């Protein structure tokens, strides 16, 4: 019976990458790219920019691999590089979600409140999605990114903490505040929708 060699974990790969092992680097990229891509996607405008940012991140990581002091902390290290890369790319290209007009908010809130969508389900979905995009866009950036990484990208708290370079407790409190902020935005939308309803 053949004894299978255990798969090296990401920290082992990071340690070998630091010594210049190109194959270990490839393995390490495969282990970490999902986290790095998701972080980049939340920090830059679109998917194409995010992929460019990922490539730039790993290029910088490979060139500065010798400076990785603690291989066990490789995830925080590569995410720090990714944040710098994304900050360089996003500088001067900040975009805000366009504000919705009150009628669109009213229609979207009605679509969200309806338990069973009516005949024109596609329209109701589109209206609801517009309101959701607008509501999420109104959150503070530091709250929005935590909410999206957790609720949409389904990352663990520890992964988000590494991605953003903050303690786990900060992630938890920001997530709590993000949900509360979202509830406040929705409440404002609900009041606006009630005013528009004849």
């Amino acid at each position, binding site marked *: 019976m053949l004894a299978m060699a255990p798969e090296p974990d990401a920290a082992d790969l990071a340690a070998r990458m630091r010594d210049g092992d190109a194959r270990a680097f490839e393995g390490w990229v495969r282990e970490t790219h999902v986290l790095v*891509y998701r972080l980049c996607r939340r920090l830059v405008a679109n998917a194409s920019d995010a992929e460019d940012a990922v490539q730039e991140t790993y290029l910088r990581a490979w060139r500065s691999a010798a400076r990785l002091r603690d291989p066990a902390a490789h995830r925080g290290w590569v995410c720090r590089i990714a944040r710098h890369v994304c900050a360089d790319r996003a500088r001067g290209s900040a975009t805000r979600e366009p504000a919705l007009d009150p009628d669109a908010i009213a229609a979207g809130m009605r679509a*969200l409140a309806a338990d069973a969508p009516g005949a024109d389900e596609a329209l109701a979905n589109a209206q609801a999605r517009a309101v959701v*995009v607008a509501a*999420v866009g109104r959150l503070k950036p530091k709250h929005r990114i935590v909410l*999206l990484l957790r609720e949409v990208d389904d990352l663990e708290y520890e992964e988000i903490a590494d991605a953003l370079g903050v303690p786990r407790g900060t992630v938890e409190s920001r997530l709590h505040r993000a949900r509360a902020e979202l509830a406040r935005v*929705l409440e404002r939308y609900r009041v606006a929708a009630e005013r528009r309803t004849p």
Partner: protein
Amino acid sequence: MTRDKETDRALDVARSALGEPVPADLAARATKAVLAEAQLVERVLGVARETHAAPVPAGVAERAARAALTAPVPTPGWWRVALPIAWRAAVGVNFVGASVLAWVLVRGDGPREHAPRSAVDNLVDAETSAVLSRALGLDAEVSR
């Protein structure tokens, strides 16, 4: 806290102050409002999972690794060599300056040592005193 909850609490306080009974369905309405708010947030997050979904493109890891490994290594510019030298020189100058300053301060705090007076110094002092005394007429005052 939502507007409904705030309103309910304000009504509660006002009715208590006026001596009116608190409505029986107050707690039920408040609970319903909180649940409705939580449900709405969950529904919005459910929609956000579709609107903000960002699936990782296939092959992104391979492309990133290949790009990093095949990228030409940039030749270091002159500043890459000069900057560390300048930095170390600046650190050295700072260290020497700080050492001199510390030495001066330490020297300044200690008791000053006077060199022992020589016989010539004593003679000069005595001569100077005599000349001054004569010039000021002090010796005449004393002798009188």
